[in-house]
């Protein structure tokens, strides 16, 4: 093999051949002998009491094995764990008194909630039998509007709670009153972060198989976090963790919605144990829209105290966060609080975030989880400040940036940023986008439009984001060199599309002298991988990669000792150079990993070297890490219809050193698609009665290739001191930067017509109305 440095190289994804040729195995592909199928009876009401459930007709249908209302399973499990769907290492808090069972009893609190399960010999029969189950529903008044949920006369979800408020996150630091009293200007803006659905290409799916060797279960589930899932299943089913094996085979996307354990996981596990047969459930897209957790769903009121030059001296913020019907991930809005000031030095803040229950699908992690909301608010607010003061938005940003010399920097909301050079990223983004040229073109178009020419309006938007990622508490890796020099890595993270197997192989190739082609990275099986957390919160490389570096170092050290023995040198004199273990300063005395591995498993080792060539290690991140960047979006708006076209898009993302540039680019592309889609397209809509109006992809708009331009990607590189690779996360960054950049661009296109803010998603009609209002007021 010709030696090449793999870290930083543009390599093709190891995962792609099997995924592109359809050879990957997903949960829905599994066929086990004797397997039966489950379908669920779900609530058509957002809030109702469950009366008598008549299962007789369903039971009588040929092929139906069992029909199971919630009451039948009360002895089988505990209520679902609370807070299992979070991203920020805050999972599993048990302080809240309210939860529900996998199959609800007595009462439902959102449409799509499960009240009975049907087991049948085929999926078709199971679905037919669901229609045969007759539930005596007694509808209750529902609360859908998050801002009204906290009011004393709103219908209440939990009788055991004094109100629909789950908790309020608060922070009041610095002289807020003083800053407002002495401000040159007070800038206020109300902003909303609409509710989104995850819409992973593969929905959720579960297969549960009784395992008689452990008197337990094997559960295949489409999850981002098999170990967490196993822990939750064990706790809920009152089993030991070692009785349950959770396998996440190929997983077709997650975006945060597949972190926690779901009612369907627990129900299938319990039913498989009771009925002693393997069971399968595969989510439909309609179930996905109804019953898989949603994201975002906040409304914010911001007030900034500013100086005439654009300096922000204080923020006063009131946010309402809708956490849906159950506390699946109630702490995510707290992350919005923790990232409140973004990239700016703001000395005082008074913040309250009220997290409220509503009769809607629970809200949990979705790409960025709490941080995109914060970045959107502050980046929009800075643009509003710039517009109010007649300043260039780039100048207002520069006026307020946390300077490079200030790192590590503790923000007013007590978040400790590791490293950053915000102006470097912004300046580069403005340069590659030819910001000055764009502004000149904008002036030309505005004049032409005013003269009645049929031109589209040009909008230029920027966003400078920072986000928080690399959550703990730990991650793991094991590295095994087989006798022929091949390497198998087992990681505690659980990639589901990210291509982390490629990135990890690049690291192992360089740091162990292994052949990239002969490295296999395995994940997603609690029986074979070391204890881990999973893939979420942009942590795979920063935390899982760091664990890998440590495990590789152990193996390399062992390999060096074997090499020292064979080359008759001191272990300290063995160096790994250009893929070979050689004696320092004597380049022709060297061994390959293959030669070393062969010896490591032979009886030809000295007494002080144990056989074998493998190691496991863990990494506990000392602090969180803060990737950042600057985006510039250019949009065109058709004045007579309000339709937006994204004309071009420029990113300068700083995720520290890039191990695999192709995979970084992929994460940025996908992140941009989702962030742009929040700005322009996506929204989960309920009517005031709690019925979902965006229940299918005919109504819920996901972005498509032809909605997006070619992206221009660039970078700066600011390493973090908090892990051995110096890397920061890139999984969520582009999503976080792009929603405000696009929104700022659209508002900028209309700014000369007096538009100051528009809520997202920026549907054509919303923009058209803003233009109409302007016409009418002229």
């Amino acid at each position: 093999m010709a030696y090449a440095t793999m870290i930083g190289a543009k390599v093709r994804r190891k995962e792609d051949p099997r995924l592109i040729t359809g050879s990957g195995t997903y949960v829905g592909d599994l066929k086990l002998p004797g397997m039966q199928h489950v379908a669920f009876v779900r609530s058509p009401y957002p809030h109702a009491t469950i009366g008598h459930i008549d299962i007789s007709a369903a039971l009588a249908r040929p092929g139906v094995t069992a029909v199971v209302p919630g009451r039948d399973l009360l002895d089988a499990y505990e209520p679902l764990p609370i807070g299992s769907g979070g991203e920020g290492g805050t999972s599993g808090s048990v302080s809240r008194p309210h939860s529900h069972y996998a199959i609800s009893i007595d009462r439902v609190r959102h449409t799509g909630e499960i009240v009975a399960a049907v087991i049948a010999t085929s999926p078709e029969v199971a679905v037919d039998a669901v229609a045969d189950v007759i539930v005596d529903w007694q509808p209750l008044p529902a609360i859908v509007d998050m801002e009204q949920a906290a009011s004393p006369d709103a219908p209440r979800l939990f009788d055991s709670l004094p109100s629909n408020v789950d908790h309020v996150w608060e922070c009041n630091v610095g002289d807020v009153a003083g800053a407002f009293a002495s401000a040159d200007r007070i800038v206020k803006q109300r902003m909303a972060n609409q509710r989104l659905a995850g819409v992973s290409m593969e929905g959720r799916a579960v297969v549960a198989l009784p395992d008689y060797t452990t008197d337990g279960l094997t559960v295949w589930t489409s999850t981002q976090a098999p170990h967490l899932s196993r822990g939750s299943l064990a706790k809920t089913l009152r089993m030991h963790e070692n009785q349950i094996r959770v396998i996440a085979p190929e997983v077709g996307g997650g975006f945060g919605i597949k972190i926690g354990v779901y009612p369907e996981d627990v129900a299938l596990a319990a039913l498989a144990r009771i009925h002693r047969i393997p069971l399968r459930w595969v989510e439909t897209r309609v179930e996905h829209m109804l019953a898989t957790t949603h994201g975002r769903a906040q409304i914010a009121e911001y007030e900034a105290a500013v100086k005439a030059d654009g300096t922000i001296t204080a923020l006063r913020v009131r946010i309402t966060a809708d956490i849906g019907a159950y506390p699946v991930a109630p702490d995510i809005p707290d992350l919005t609080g923790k990232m409140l000031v973004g990239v700016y030095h703001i000395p005082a803040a008074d913040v309250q975030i009220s997290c409220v229950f509503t009769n809607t699908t629970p809200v949990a992690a979705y790409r960025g989880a709490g941080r995109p909301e914060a970045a959107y608010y502050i980046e929009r607010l800075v643009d509003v400040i710039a517009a109010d003061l007649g300043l260039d938005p780039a100048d207002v940003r520069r006026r307020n940036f946390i300077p490079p010399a200030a790192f590590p920097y503790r923000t007013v909301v007590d978040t400790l940023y590791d490293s950053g050079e915000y102006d470097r990223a912004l300046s580069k983004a403005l340069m590659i986008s030819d910001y000055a040229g764009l502004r000149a073109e904008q002036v030309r178009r505005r004049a032409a439009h005013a003269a009645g020419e049929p031109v589209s309006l040009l909008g230029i938007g920027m966003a400078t984001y920072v986000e928080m990622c690399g959550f703990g508490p730990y991650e793991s890796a094991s590295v095994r060199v087989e006798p022929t020099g091949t390497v198998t890595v087992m990681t505690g993270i659980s990639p589901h599309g990210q291509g982390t197997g490629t990135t990890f192989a690049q690291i192992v190739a360089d740091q162990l002298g292994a052949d990239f082609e002969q490295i296999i990275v395995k994940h997603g099986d609690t029986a074979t991988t070391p204890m881990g957390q999973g893939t979420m919160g942009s942590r795979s490389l920063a935390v899982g990669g760091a664990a890998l570096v440590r495990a590789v170092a152990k193996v390399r050290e062992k390999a060096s000792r074997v090499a020292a023995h064979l080359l008759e040198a001191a272990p300290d004199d063995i160096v790994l150079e250009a893929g070979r273990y050689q004696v320092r300063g004597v380049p022709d005395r060297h061994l390959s990993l293959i030669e070393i591995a062969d010896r490591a498993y032979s009886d030809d080792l000295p007494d002080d070297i144990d056989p074998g060539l493998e190691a496991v290690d863990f990494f506990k991140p000392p602090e969180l890490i803060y990737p950042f960047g600057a985006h510039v979006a250019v949009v065109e708006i058709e004045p007579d219809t309000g339709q937006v076209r994204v004309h071009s898009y420029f990113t300068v993302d700083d995720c520290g050193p890039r191990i695999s540039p192709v995979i970084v680019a992929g994460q940025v592309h996908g992140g941009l698609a989702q962030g742009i889609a929040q700005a322009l397209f996506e929204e989960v809509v309920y009517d005031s009665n709690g019925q979902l109006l965006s229940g299918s992809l005919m109504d819920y708009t996901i972005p498509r290739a032809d909605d997006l331009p070619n992206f221009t990607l660039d970078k700066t590189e600011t390493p973090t001191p908090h892990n051995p690779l110096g890397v920061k996360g890139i999984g969520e960054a582009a999503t976080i930067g792009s929603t405000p950049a696009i929104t700022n661009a659209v508002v900028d296109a209309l700014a000369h017509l007096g538009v100051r803010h528009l809520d997202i998603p920026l549907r054509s009609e919303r923009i058209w109305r803003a233009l109409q209002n302007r016409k009418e007021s002229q």
Partner: protein
Amino acid sequence: MIPASFAYHAPQSVAEAVSLLEQHGDEAKILAGGHSLLPALKLRLSQPGVLIDISRIGELQGIHVGSSIEIGAGATYAAVAGHAGVRSGCAVLAECVEQIGDIQVRNRGTVGGALAHADPAADLPAVLLALGGSVSAQGPGGSRTIAADDLFVEMLTTALEPNEVVTKVTVPALGKGEGAAYSKLKHPASRYAIVGVAAYVKLAADGSVAAARIAVTGAGPKAERQSAAEAALVGSAGDDAAVAAAAAAAGDDMEYLGDIHASEDYRRAMVKVYTRRAVAAALSRARA
């Protein structure tokens, strides 16, 4: 997403399909491209006991171009868009079907299915109305022709009898001095028409507008002719003022439907915008 169970027949001829329809009555549904019917079955909005798949009937496939263009009801959008005779004789048809759905939809969906289904947001009905086309249908009593103007009765309802099969669609081949265009505001999620406007014009020797037909789809419960807009155009010079007058007159006495993406007000305004675009394009083609 699993449909309720059904029996399946794949007749080889139209006559056989008609007799199966007769035999099974209300229980039966024709299955063509399946791109409207199958989603409805999977959502269990429709649960027919019998499906009669006409996609293997050879006599429904052909496309013939002469003084008029005859398209077999079973021809797919892709077949229509790719047909050289259609592209030269009635380019607006290709222009329309190329904007339907995505490649998969265009490879399966059929012109007969689209017209028989009469989805309020479907594209083809507007074009058929603007071209003054017709469909041929075969029932137990034989064949008949239904003019476009008589075909669309209300939302998802046509003048077809339940036991009739659409066999072909006929539109005129456009000659000198004639032009037609279709202009569409796509629904962002479904890509159906939020508003679609088809316009046809015929110029007199002196360049004035001798005839015009304008039809709107997507905005309301069914595709509809716009007689006020047509009247504003006919007899005019077809200049900018006439186009503006036609656009201003379009969509005024129509029923509208709104959804989360586009309200009735917005659709009303867009009918005017897209009428202007379609009429302007049709005029410039007629002059070419």
